[in-house]
């Protein structure tokens, strides 16, 4: 950067964002960030999207990050504004989403006095950020902003927080954005060991029943093309976790679905009966493994990850490879090409045939009939309407609808399935869809939501309509906190406790219209396709209230603590839960 320039701390924040190439941020003003918002008013190339709740702003920033691979940015004032960001920060921490949160703080001399809207937000968020800064000297602001972006997106991605007291925002500095960061303690791996890459390649070459078990790290590491190249070269089957969904084209012949609690039985068979499990930016989460000791018991493990702390955290790795996945996968492919040149050939064809047999034997099943439309039908119809398009991004809330979305929506383009995996944050869907729309204005962004989730963040429909960030909400409305109901039904003798929300209250169509969005109510399968098609093409924010069977369960299912291959399966006759 060229010479320095006198300005206020508040302006320095925006100039920093501009240098970082940030186009859109999300936030809500308040007392302790007034100088920063005045700087927005005085002009910036950065677009500020006004959310209706700071949690929404945070999830929007996450949605932008997940749809684009860039760092998301959220602003909030001190105290309650900052604490409302805690959920998105925790979510970004669990799902390794690059996020810079900028919060206002009370004036420096008031810190520690329990001043109005004071909260020790760096203290509150300490266990769930990669790092945080409380700015104490305005001259340090540019280097802190630079460091914040650097830490958020290097190594394993994640959230950081910059807390800026109001007097620092009002103080003058000579602004010069540094060219490099000075963080002697921050040295994420930049290159994997060639010996480990060779060892991984050799193990893969010799495996009869290998499986690529792909997680969200692949998307964060932008290694989708390298993954595809590796899989195709050596005919390796691929399963993706919920977070890894869309890292591999899902209609590809080598794609074998999703392992875990609600993955198809054939996907879990394929994952658990392999002889070599290649973890690619995945972390052996309990929702994937079921009973850990029974997970892929016959497999050796190759673990590829940018974060060495994931190696051996839950499952011993026979071959650990730590570094950027893009480089690692490329390196393994290069080694396999060399082997191929010497006459070595893949041995996976019988294994691929075996998985294909399981696929035939154990398809996803549900039964239509009864008084209600089935939720699976809603997802199947949405899939059919969007199957030919490569410009559709899905987001979800958390619960049954999320699992059906995983099972029935096939994503062939990277970064087109945005969901809260690790933290399981209900209400993630609508704001993250808005953020994705800001990142990809060309795309049609569809939030598959549940009625419970919808009511946690539906105020952001105002943001969608007023900020011209139209999204389509496909509401899988079963009138219940459905996943909780399912667990109460299965494991607490069907004693339903505090889970009934009703189909009718609120009137979702009227609510959508109240927010300036298009509203649809669908009660029968006959009206479904027309309403969804209209919502997808209307160009406005739309809410399609699909009233579905209140007692439909998500199957198959690995009960907690059970081995992944001991899945509960869908049982006809209809009406029975399992």
């Amino acid at each position: 950067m060229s010479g320095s320039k006198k300005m206020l701390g508040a302006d320095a924040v925006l100039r920093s964002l501009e240098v970082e190439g940030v186009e859109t941020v999300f936030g809500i003003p308040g007392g302790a960030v007034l100088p920063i918002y005045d700087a927005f008013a005085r002009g910036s190339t950065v677009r500020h999207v006004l959310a209706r709740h700071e949690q929404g702003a945070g999830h929007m920033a996450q949605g932008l990050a997940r749809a684009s691979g860039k760092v998301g940015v959220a602003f909030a004032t001190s105290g309650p504004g900052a604490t409302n960001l805690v959920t998105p920060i925790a979510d970004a921490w669990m799902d390794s989403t690059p996020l810079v949160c900028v919060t206002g703080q009370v004036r420096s001399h008031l810190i520690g006095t329990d001043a109005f809207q004071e909260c020790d937000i760096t203290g509150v968020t300490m266990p769930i950020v990669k790092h945080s800064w409380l700015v104490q000297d305005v001259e340090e602001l540019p280097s802190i902003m630079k460091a914040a972006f650097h830490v958020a997106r290097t190594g394993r991605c994640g959230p950081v927080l910059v807390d800026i007291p109001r007097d620092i925002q009002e103080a003058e500095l000579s602004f010069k954005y540094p060219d490099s960061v000075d963080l002697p303690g921050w040295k994420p791996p930049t290159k994997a060991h060639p010996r480990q890459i060779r060892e991984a390649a050799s193990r893969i070459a010799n495996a009869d029943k290998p499986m690529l078990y792909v997680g969200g790290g692949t998307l964060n590491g932008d290694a989708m093309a390298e993954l595809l190249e590796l899989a195709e070269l050596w005919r390796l089957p691929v399963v993706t976790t919920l977070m890894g969904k869309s890292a591999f084209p899902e209609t590809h012949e080598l794609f074998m679905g999703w392992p875990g609690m609600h993955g198809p039985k054939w996907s879990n068979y394929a994952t658990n009966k392999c002889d070599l499990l290649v973890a690619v930016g995945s972390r052996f989460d309990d929702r994937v493994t079921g009973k850990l000791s029974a997970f892929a018991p016959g497999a050796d493990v190759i673990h590829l990850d940018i974060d060495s702390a994931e190696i051996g955290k839950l499952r011993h790795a026979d071959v650990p490879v730590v570094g950027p996945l893009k480089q690692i996968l490329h390196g393994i492919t290069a080694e396999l090409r060399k082997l191929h040149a010497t006459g070595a050939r893949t041995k996976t064809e019988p294994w691929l045939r075996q998985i294909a047999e399981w696929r035939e034997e154990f398809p996803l099943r549900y039964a239509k009939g009864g008084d209600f439309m089935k939720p699976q039908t809603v997802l199947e119809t949405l899939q059919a309407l969007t199957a030919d398009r490569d410009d559709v991004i899905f987001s979800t809330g958390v619960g049954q609808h999320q699992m059906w979305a995983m099972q029935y929506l096939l994503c062939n383009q990277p970064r087109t399935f945005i969901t809260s995996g690790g933290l399981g944050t209900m209400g993630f869907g609508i704001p993250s869809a808005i953020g994705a729309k800001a990142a990809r204005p060309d795309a049609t962004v569809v939030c598959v939501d549940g009625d419970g989730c919808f009511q946690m963040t539906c105020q952001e429909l105002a943001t969608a309509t007023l900020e011209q960030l139209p999204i389509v909400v496909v509401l899988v409305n079963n009138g219940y906190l459905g996943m909780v109901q399912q667990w109460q039904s299965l494991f607490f003798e069907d004693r339903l406790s505090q889970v009934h929300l009703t189909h009718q209250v609120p009137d979702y169509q009227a609510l959508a219209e109240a927010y300036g969005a298009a509203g649809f109510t669908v009660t029968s399968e006959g009206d479904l396709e027309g309403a969804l098609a209209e919502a997808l093409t209307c160009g406005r924010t739309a809410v399609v209230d699909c009233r579905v069977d209140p007692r439909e369960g998500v199957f198959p299912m690995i009960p907690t603590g059970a081995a992944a291959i001991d899945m509960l399966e869908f049982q006809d006759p209809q009406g029975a839960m399992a």
Partner: protein
Amino acid sequence: MKHTVSVLVENKPGALARVSTMFARRAFNIESLSVGPTERHDVSRITLRVDCERHSIEQIEKQMHKLVNVLRVSELEPGEAVERELALIKVHAPADKRHELVALAEVFHARVADLGADALIFEVVGSPEELDSFEELVRPYGVKEMARTGRIGLGRSSATTTPLRKQHV
């Protein structure tokens, strides 16, 4: 099994809190922790004593490496490191017992740091195990109060401590 971990951190606000928060969050127990300056004004040393399995200590080390303020993590191997601790022990000491107590203290090179009408404060430096023994010995006389610093340590000049790289496996 017990391990002593020596951590060099940037001397910045919150560095200690970040280390201790990580321990709490990952459910690792700290037996003792001491922090103080080093030969460099901008670097502090945290010495931690933890009781855990080998697998956990590796996790602890890797998780600490990810903290931005952490510069270096090493495990101090017993036998390859000098480990010391300081204790102040206030012992009930009526006039007729003083002579006996002071004689005991001499064995441990403990110094009398304060002398009152019916109590005295011993200052004793040694390995934490030596301090345990001394405390055992004076306990029958009546320990009124005790403060210990927690252990600090340095790898011997002849040995290399196990430097745990910031890089990777």
